[in-house]
């Protein structure tokens, strides 16, 4: 007979084994080991790095997409125009059967994309006399060059002032018509330089061009974040504008094989991401959620049920018998005699 009695005491009292190990000793040893491991691991593998995309990056890398997005905002057909609360009340948002929490949440971050993203920044730049060319002034050496650029700035300023006047004098139907006419032609042409002057576009071409210059110079990033304070940490405005365009989605798709997938579990570059969220992101890629308008609330409802079931697992009949039905605890080695 060779049964160590000390071992059996480890499992009495509902199978708690912790009492036979020194809790604090274990913690201290683990702390030393894990600290060493992470210090070495961090030195070998480093930290994920990939630059965020600014409006400036977008305007420089994909000017056509930028202008098309700005034009969509002017037409009132941007992605977030139909988002619903908390940005606007133009749609109901997502609902779970008869329950619409999004509508219940109400309007808290009022968003008027045409004015906030296009008209007001241009108006602001009029007031301050800031244009993309201002950035170039710094690099100019001769006074003749400075005069040329100043002339360009004055011309731009005058053109934008006239365009803004024309825009404000027109009604929303006219706005939509101008912007849509311009978008259609620009989409066919591919680049803005190929699109000629046409009264059917109204002031849209002048406005979007000016906004592009403003963004390319980096001014738009600042203007959209400093509405309430010059030292802002709220990027809701520029992020929503960026999100309305196709550029960031293309970049994300290239980086995380995104497609229509919820990429919340993706890592940066070749780093692991929040892999524990894979069971959450998974639901977005299967039907009916992959094509549902209410995917977010539907998937959340499923996760809520799973989460509550996990918390209350001990109280749920059948589920609390799973470990007994699938007896992992029976796996053990076969002793040979």
């Amino acid at each position: 007979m060779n049964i160590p009695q000390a071992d059996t005491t480890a499992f009495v009292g509902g199978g708690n084994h912790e009492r036979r190990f020194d809790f604090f000793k274990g913690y201290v040893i683990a702390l030393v080991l894990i600290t060493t491991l992470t210090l070495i691991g961090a030195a070998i593998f480093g930290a994920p790095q990939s630059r965020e995309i600014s409006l400036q990056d977008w305007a420089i890398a994909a000017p056509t997409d930028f202008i098309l997005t700005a034009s969509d905002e002017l037409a009132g057909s941007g992605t977030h125009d139909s988002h619903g609360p908390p940005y606007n009340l133009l749609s109901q948002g997502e609902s779970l059967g008869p329950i619409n929490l999004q509508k219940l949440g109400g309007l808290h971050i009022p968003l008027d994309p045409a004015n906030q993203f296009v008209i007001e920044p241009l108006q602001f730049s009029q007031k301050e006399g800031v244009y993309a060319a201002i950035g170039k002034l710094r690099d100019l050496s001769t006074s003749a060059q400075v005069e040329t650029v100043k002339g360009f700035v004055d011309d731009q300023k005058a053109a934008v002032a006239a365009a803004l006047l024309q825009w404000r004098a027109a009604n929303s139907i006219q706005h939509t018509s101008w912007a849509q006419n311009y978008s259609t032609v620009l989409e066919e042409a591919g680049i803005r330089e190929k699109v000629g002057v046409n009264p059917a576009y109204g002031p849209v071409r002048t406005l979007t061009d000016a906004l592009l210059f403003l963004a390319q110079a980096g001014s738009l990033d600042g203007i959209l974040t400093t509405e309430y304070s010059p030292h802002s940490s709220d990027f809701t405005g520029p992020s929503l504008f960026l999100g309305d365009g196709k550029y960031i989605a293309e970049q994300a798709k290239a980086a995380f094989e995104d497609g229509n997938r919820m990429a919340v579990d993706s890592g940066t570059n070749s780093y692991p991401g929040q892999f524990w969220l894979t069971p959450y992101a998974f639901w977005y890629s299967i039907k009916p959620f992959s094509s549902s308008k209410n995917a977010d609330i539907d998937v959340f409802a499923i996760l809520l049920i799973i989460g509550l079931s996990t918390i209350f697992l001990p109280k749920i009949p059948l589920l609390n018998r799973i470990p007994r039905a699938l007896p992992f605890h029976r796996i053990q080695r076969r002793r040979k005699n």
Partner: protein
Amino acid sequence: VDTLAMSLNGPAKYIHLGPLTISIPNLIMFCIIIFLFTIPFLSGMLKIRRRPVAMEDARHQNEIDTLTLIAKWSHIVNSTMLAALTVVGASGLFMASRGLNWLYTSNVSRYVHAVHFWSVQILFIAIILHFIGNFWRAKWRSRAFAMWASGTITFFTCMFTAFTGGVVASNLNSQWIALQSKNVFNSLGVGSLFNTLNVGQMLTVHVAIFPVVIGSLVLWHVALVRGRSFRSPWKRNTISKGPK
């Protein structure tokens, strides 16, 4: 420090398993978890000792040996979890004291960020092992519901905290995740209470509110576990049915 860093900043490969799309790095993390989970079983199977005992004694001995291995394994996992949480907290505190823009300014900041990043990965590996280990042993038996519930709530809170950290990490990934996941909070009607595009708000939630919540939950959970285990045994040999 950077010269040591292996290049993990190239694009990741993704594989498609039916509707499931998963990156190779994430898949590796899952494989690590599965491997670590099987260690007590594997080591039990590999370490075959020969002893001159009767068959029924041997079976009883096997059971005890396996349980001892699993108990040791659990102890290691539990200690790892708390140790990793400490490293996460310490590196996080350091980063929080320096501010968000500090993250990418120097080799030191990148290194501290890397320590925080990898300790979070280790923490979640340990939490998941702890979770599945306790699930398969049905540790909620013997009126331990509060212990189980406090553990699962802590797990979900950790997930949410990690999410807020992911959103403020100032890279393309965090930008895209914030943009996508704002729809989730908007659909719940809490889009302004929890605006993922507001970096200042997310950072405050990540570094001030949730660490306190997690700390309290962990204390509660550990107190419950330790409180139980200090109780005197009330029934001996309930598992063992070996020879008297």
